[in-house]
């Protein structure tokens, strides 16, 4: 059921699939006449591990729990469900993983919904070809891309806009499981498909992308945005929560470099002149958002292995060492690097380490304005080397020091408080984000591959 005069109501139950929400909040969205459910399944925010390894941050049971509620709701209301950035990073493995969970739920719940999967992973050959075409451009603060960086990436994804999602919906999909997509493309897709203006569609999509983050109670759950010809209206699904002009406008600040101008594949959202007005105590009207079409580009994300890490963690409560923690650290580094050279024959070009003093200055280091003495300090040693075996060997050389190292002026050996046995934990391969570039496209959908699975009638 569509809202009057061609308006589209987008239900966003949560900022992240698998984070949880109440079934009653989704029911409330359906009662309000939702035309589509859009939910994000990923982010780069938790670091390069998930893209690098092609694994998900969320656990399957939590994703299945959320999908069960959403698939039942979509089937009951006969409205589409759009999930983006499946499996955290939107790799092909992430899309396949979410598609498998969806298939199980559809079978268990006997729901006859057709499913489109949109794959967004890119081959190194494609990226290198476009690089040679001079069609790959760096985003600030990165510099021009070289082919060896492309080859080093374990996974590369292109961040789709609304176009492949719209194409899948037009082809009849009830459920769209997209690989890497802009957070906004999920909520903007149906309003744009129905011909609503791009300014309000993209602005509303940006406001709802983190679910309840734009409300006065971010933990209260999802929101409903109604997009129409002149703007959009936003309200929380939880009757106890409220959207205020400040809470909605302030959401443009969240995780954005520039809160007024945001690049999408098809152009730029400009909210400089947007006006936020309270309709009542819990609904906000937004007008004046604009969208400037620009050259169509797709942002690339890629991650590469930087080495293998082993972690060790000990803790200090001894007052004398705490009072002389800088001297203790200096001695640690000196004895540790010396012992690694002596026993393993390695110099500091062969491995790297980070010694963190939690409780003292681990988080901010030299930027920390505080000078209070610590009550206790947790000492984390992270060692990175070309292989796991080497990283662990280096960390094990540090083990006796993390157990017994005194300060230079102590004439006995203290025993420090290891947190676990064994002290060392192998962290596996570690990654870094290697791409921060855009590709000029020839068509908005050329970099994405869609597969359709027809609805199965369950007996």
């Amino acid at each position, binding site marked *: 059921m569509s809202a009057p005069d061609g308006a589209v109501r987008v239900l966003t139950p949560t900022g992240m699939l698998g984070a949880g929400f109440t079934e009653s909040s989704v029911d409330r969205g359906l009662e309000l006449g939702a035309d589509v459910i859009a939910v994000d399944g990923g982010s780069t925010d938790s*670091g390069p591990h998930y893209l690098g390894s092609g694994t998900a941050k969320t656990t399957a049971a939590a994703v299945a729990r959320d999908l069960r509620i959403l698939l039942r709701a979509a089937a009951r209301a006969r409205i589409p469900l759009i999930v983006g950035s499946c499996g955290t990073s939107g790799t092909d493995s992430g899309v396949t993983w979410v598609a498998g969970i969806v298939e199980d739920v559809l079978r268990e719940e006997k729901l006859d919904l057709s499913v489109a999967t949109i794959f967004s992973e890119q081959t190194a050959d494609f990226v290198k070809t476009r690089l040679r075409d001079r069609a790959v451009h760096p985003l600030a603060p990165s510099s021009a891309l070289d082919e060896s960086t492309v080859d080093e990436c374990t996974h590369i994804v292109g961040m789709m806009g609304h176009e492949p999602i719209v194409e899948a919906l037009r082809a009849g999909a009830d459920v769209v499981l997209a690989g890497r997509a802009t957070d906004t493309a999920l909520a903007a897709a149906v309003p744009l498909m129905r011909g609503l203006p791009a300014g309000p569609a993209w602005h509303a999509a940006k406001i709802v992308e983190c679910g309840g983050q734009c409300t006065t109670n971010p933990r209260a759950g999802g929101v409903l945005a109604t997009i129409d010809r002149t703007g959009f209206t936003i309200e929380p699904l939880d009757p106890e929560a409220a959207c205020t002009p400040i809470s909605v406008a302030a959401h443009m600040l969240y995780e954005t470099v520039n809160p007024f101008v945001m690049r999408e594949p098809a152009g730029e959202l400009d909210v400089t002149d947007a006006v936020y007005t309270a309709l009542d105590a819990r609904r906000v009207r937004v007008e004046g958002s604009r969208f400037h079409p620009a050259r169509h580009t797709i942002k690339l994300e890629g991650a590469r292995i930087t080495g293998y890490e082993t972690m060790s963690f000990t803790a200090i409560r001894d007052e004398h060492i705490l009072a002389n923690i800088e001297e203790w650290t200096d001695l640690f580094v000196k004895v540790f690097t010396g012992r690694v050279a002596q026993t393993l024959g390695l110099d500091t070009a062969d491995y790297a380490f980070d010694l963190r003093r939690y409780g003292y200055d681990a*988080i901010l280091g030299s930027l920390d304005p505080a000078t209070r003495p610590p009550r206790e300090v947790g000492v984390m040693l992270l060692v990175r080397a070309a292989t796991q075996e080497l990283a662990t060997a280096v960390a094990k050389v540090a083990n006796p020091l993390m157990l017994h190292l005194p300060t230079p002026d102590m004439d006995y050996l203290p025993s420090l408080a290891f947190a676990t046995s064994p002290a060392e934990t192998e962290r596996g391969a570690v990654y870094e984000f290697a791409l921060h570039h855009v590709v000029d496209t020839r068509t908005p959908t050329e970099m994405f591959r869609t597969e359709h699975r027809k609805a199965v009638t369950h007996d």
Partner: protein
Amino acid sequence: MTEQRTLGDLALEVRSKNAGPFWVTMELFLRDEAGYALAAEIVDEDLVASLHEVRAQDVQIFRIPALNVVKISFPRPVPQGGLHDRDVHAGQHHVPLASVPAHPRG
């Protein structure tokens, strides 16, 4: 001697976060217009550069009187999730800004 007021004391909230893997952004949500006016004057590119050991020309500042907000963005100094990244979400990096004394420049 009275305790010196900080920007954090004038604010409802001071926060920091990644803005994608390659940028950090932080916001001061000031309690009122007076606090906003003071923060908008105190916080500039040079101050942020010295607090975070980054180049002043890379710092972007947005002063938003309608929200009583001063927003700051700059390239992430340490690669996200790397060996030397001690704050994967950059969620604790607002503290130096919040600790800046809140008095007008003389």
